């Protein structure tokens, strides 16, 4: 839909604010409604918006699917790693109290790390799912 002047200009204008808003939701999860999952969805929405206007091939060049797979795996690793680190420090799985010297800081860092892992995985998985679905359109099956 690149030939659609109004859509192209407006989407170009909006992508950067949407991305920064997604990251804001990511890092302020413990102060306002939001957190990793929402942030991941918003982040993916910005990439999907780009793919809708500029086409799938262009989106795959800017945000390669291979990188997304790696980031998705990293997110899960971060989540599990935080949990296991808490276990090694003497608590239960994902027991944030044991992450730092005192429980309050431990809770804070634990939440941030786990939410960050969730955000990474959700955004990359949603974008990957979109890539796969968008690549199976009516047009492509005809040609």
């Amino acid at each position, binding site marked *: 839909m*690149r*030939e659609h002047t109004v859509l192209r200009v407006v989407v170009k204008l909006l992508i950067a604010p949407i991305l920064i808003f997604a990251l804001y939701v990511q890092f302020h999860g413990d102060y306002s409604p939001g957190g990793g999952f*929402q942030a991941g*969805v918003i982040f993916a929405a910005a990439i*999907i918006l780009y*793919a*809708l206007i500029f086409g799938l091939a262009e989106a*795959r060049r800017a945000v390669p699917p291979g990188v997304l797979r790696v980031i998705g795996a990293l997110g899960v690793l971060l989540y599990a790693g935080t949990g296991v680190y808490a276990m090694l420090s003497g608590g239960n799985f994902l027991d944030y109290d044991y992450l730092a010297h005192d429980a309050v800081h431990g809770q804070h860092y634990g939440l941030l790390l786990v939410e960050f892992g969730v955000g990474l995985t959700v955004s990359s998985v949603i974008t990957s799912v979109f890539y796969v679905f968008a690549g199976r*359109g009516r047009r492509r099956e005809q040609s």
Partner: protein
Amino acid sequence: MFLAAIIGVAVTMLLILIRALLGPSAYDRILALNLFGTKTVLFVSVLGFLNGRPEFLDLGLVYALINFTGTIAVLKFMQYGDLGWDEASKDKPDV
């Protein structure tokens, strides 16, 4: 006074919903749904103030964003039958 505003928005949403159900064309329904989305943003914002929790504004913003993306996606799918389609690169092989 927030309650009056909320009731106004709710009545509007009801009217829009009737239009979405009546149709008659698919474009009428998409128009109604898009409007329903922007009314939801207002609804959530005012509701946040009514409950004394202005953090709800973040949710409103998320809703506005998803609503816009969704409308564009539905329109593109109706027009091309393909979400990843790009006219400029139709000659190139797919990655």
